[in-house]
């Protein structure tokens, strides 16, 4: 469940990150090192979400159908297929495998 206080915490924190630059830019500057780390951290978290979301359900393995669908979506995205096709092909692959009895 996502309670209202969690939505508000995320909103206020995000707004603070946005407003810091416009408010403080005359007085301090961010180092290249920090900029680099923040950009990499975002990519690391997104990929970790992809991996855990594709492979795990609760504390166990999600079954083969879901990662297979995500793999198809990933290949299509790499080949620059349009976004709707990427998502629909991924979901359809998983759905078809389940229809064929793959977990």
């Amino acid at each position, binding site marked *: 469940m*996502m*309670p*209202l*206080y*969690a*939505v508000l915490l*995320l*909103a206020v924190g*995000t*707004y603070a*990150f*946005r*407003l*810091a*630059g*416009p*408010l*403080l*830019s005359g007085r301090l*500057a*961010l180092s*290249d090192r*920090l*900029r*680099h780390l*923040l*950009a*990499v*951290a*975002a*990519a*690391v*978290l*997104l*990929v*970790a*979400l*992809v*991996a*855990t979301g594709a492979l*795990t359900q609760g*504390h166990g393995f*999600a079954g083969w*159908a879901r990662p297979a*669908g*995500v793999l198809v*979506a*990933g290949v299509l*995205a*790499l080949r*620059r297929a349009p*976004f*709707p096709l990427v*998502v629909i092909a*991924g*979901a*359809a692959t*998983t*759905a078809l495998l*389940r229809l064929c009895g793959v977990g």
Partner: protein
Amino acid sequence: MNMRPLLRTLERATVRDIALVCLADALVGASFGAISVSGGLPLWVPVALSALVFAGGSQFAAVGVVLSGGGALAAVATGLVLNARLLPFGFTVADVLDGPRWRRLLGAQLLTDETAAFALQQNEPRRRRAAYWLCGIALYVVWNVSVLLGAIAGGLIGDTDALGLDAAFPAVLLALVLPSLSDRRTRTAAVVGAVVAVAATPFLPAGLPVLLALVGLLFAGRPEAGESTRKAADDAHAVNGEKEAVR
């Protein structure tokens, strides 16, 4: 803010590119709404997240953590680490938001990867400002409307597993993150983090494994010389990738 002078200040091609990015984000927003509600969250959650947080990646991340059984605080922490990347963007576009206080406070909420990239593409201050505001206002409207429509549609879907919708969530995130993985050190850090997160999943409460992935940052390396100046070009490139994806 009146939209007509903004449109006249910008080149036709820029306005068209902004429209294409809005179209792409509308599809992402609709998937976000549909996945959240079909996953079991009440309609107000994706709608409130979109209006108040207005940052797609972190919205997906927070909802993903919660839907996989994670705690609300783990969801907030994941979303905040993701949105920390907006901090340097804020410094980069600070000149765009110069002016009366209300404009700075309002304009800050419109700061996203896309608005920053479009502002940075423009050389002249007047155009930078016009690109930022036009992209920001258009995206804010399009994003919130598409999330609401997606959420309503998501409520009508019956058996989400039979339709493979659980694969749609990681598929969307993968499509979003792929452009940033062209950098080798980022890729290494991300792969290490993903392996750690998956390996930790059986043992840790849901939500924490994804945060643990940040140990991958040990492999992030040092920024190359001149990286911050090149960053603007990279961002513009990412937006171009998104445009191609729509075509």
